[in-house]
């Protein structure tokens, strides 16, 4: 399998002088197409920071990240945004959706930026919402959806744009167990049926259990990298 994301000696330092510390320290990691990977570890282990570095949301202090064959350190802010638009999907812990857009419009958002024609966009958005079990709720605004429903809309949005990889940061943190199970089952299904690549940062054992590759971190370094 080819690597979609590859990082070499990646580090992220915060602060300066005696008070500086490494949130991520000399990490090398490759994620291949179709992988269903978790980054786990206790609070402060660096999993979220690593996720942010791999996705181009944050800039490393040392080391390099290559995504879809492009080194992120060679790209400006507008080019990075374009790369994220074309190749990356995101599901955050909370506040995933644009509040002034309906669920369907949120799903269409990235397709619209990608220049997909309106009719095709709408059809695809409705299909995605159906697939994540939210058919018929497309007109609702995020404020009218539950936490679990919002997360599923975020996944539908990510799916609709057909990214090379979907990064999820603590996607189940604000969900109850039922909603968490439904979300994880959906992600697993998308991975198995569509070959979508997932990289999920989480400390939730249920999430880790769902993934096939488990990268465990401690104090900014990779402690273990196991295939289940």
């Amino acid at each position, binding site marked *: 399998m080819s690597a979609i994301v590859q990082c070499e000696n990646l580090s992220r330092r915060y602060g300066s002088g005696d008070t500086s510390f490494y949130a991520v320290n000399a990490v090398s990691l490759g994620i291949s197409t179709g992988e269903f990977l978790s980054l786990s570890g206790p609070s402060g282990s660096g999993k979220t920071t690593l996720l942010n570095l791999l996705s181009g*949301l944050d*800039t490393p202090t040392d080391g390099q990240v290559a995504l879809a064959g492009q080194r992120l350190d060679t790209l400006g*802010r*507008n080019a990075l945004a374009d790369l*994220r638009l*074309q190749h990356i999907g995101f599901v955050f812990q909370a506040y995933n959706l644009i509040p002034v857009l309906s669920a369907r419009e949120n799903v269409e958002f990235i397709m*619209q930026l990608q220049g997909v024609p309106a009719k095709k966009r709408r059809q695809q958005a409705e299909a995605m919402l159906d697939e994540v079990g939210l058919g018929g709720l497309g007109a609702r605004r995020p404020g009218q959806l539950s936490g679990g429903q919002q997360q599923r809309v975020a996944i539908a949005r990510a799916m609709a744009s057909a990214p090379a990889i979907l990064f999820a940061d603590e996607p189940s943190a604000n969900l109850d167990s039922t909603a968490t199970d439904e979300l994880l089952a959906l992600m697993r299904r998308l991975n198995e049926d569509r070959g979508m690549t997932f990289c999920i940062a989480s400390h939730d054992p249920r999430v880790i259990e769902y993934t096939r590759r488990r990268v465990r971190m401690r104090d900014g370094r990779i402690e273990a990298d196991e295939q289940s």
Partner: protein
Amino acid sequence: MGTLGLLLALAWRNLWRNWRRTAILLLAVGVGVWSLTSTSALMQAWSASSLDAGLRDMTGQGQIHATGYRDDPGIARRMPVPTGRLLKLLDSAEVAHWAPRVRVPAVIQSEYETYPVTLAGVLPVRERGLSFIPDSISQGRYLKGGDDGGLLLGRKLAERLHTGLGRRVVLMSQGADGTLAERGFQVVGIFSSNPHNEKGLVLAGLATSQAMLGLRISEEGEITGVSFDLHDIAGLSAYIRALRAAAPRLDIQPWPVLLPMVSAMTQLSDSFVWLWLAIMFILLTFGIVNTLLMSLFERTREMGLLQALGLKPRLIFLQVTLETLLLVGLGVLVGLLAGAATILAFHDGLDLGFLAAGAEWLGAGQVLYPRLVPSELFGTGLLIWVLSVGASLWPAWRAVRKTPIDAISRAT
């Protein structure tokens, strides 16, 4: 709907997330634009009224004199009645009215009093439409012709002289040969005008005045000046140039030179409008910047999310700018409509009777006629709208300067 449509939709919907805040700023913009357009129309009406009063006060849009007359307005500085090229220009289609005059300092004497005055010898028919005289007769009659032997006095002068209709007065002045010229006149009319005219101006027929002063009369006659009005005052500069080319030895001046105070007041009025625009814009800028900063502060994480999803920082910048354009555009529209309604409401005249004394002293009429000029209204609104974009640039820059992770993590 492409990217621009998406940004417009986001901008529009973001405006109404806090409708009270948006409504307050809309009201501020609307009131500001309304005040600017209404004030501008009133100031222009005031200027127009002052200018009209000044021009009709025996001045006209332009005057022709012998060189030196304006500094020493006496009989010695006289000019021939226009002929040749000069006459052709005065009779051209662009001239609405022109009138030859003799205007000299004189002394008027009644049985009881003696006062200094200015004698104006006029052709009555030519003064119609050019000066205030024909429309200002309050007692008696207007002059019948250039050879009318009667005299028109101002109301205040008649009171001072203790004279009235049908009574005789004597006018004295310097004649063309340097000797004393005098003649008795019967008062045939009393006029009402501003205090300056009422106390100091007397009017007689042109030929009668020429005869009294020993000037040549008729086609080879002598006068002290010509006053004229064009149909379109915008062509005055070019017309003056043409007159000067036709009569290089004469002193030909437009009204701003002849009425420096009116000219200054017109410029002051224009300057006031610009000053008011600047003040209003500064105040609006504070309002816009404050509103935008508050709104964007509340959406910090959302800005990060948009970047994370792939919206380029320059497009986020554009979206924030669009919010301002929509907000101010709406406010400008409301203000323009209110301004237009206000101006139209006074289209038949705004009576300043309660300010009559002050208005008269400043040379303006009692009734002002604000005019709705769509191009000016549109221009004012467009100027404010475009300038307001400048007010949005700093908040928009602040919105995009954070990296996605900074924006997302700071707000959580």
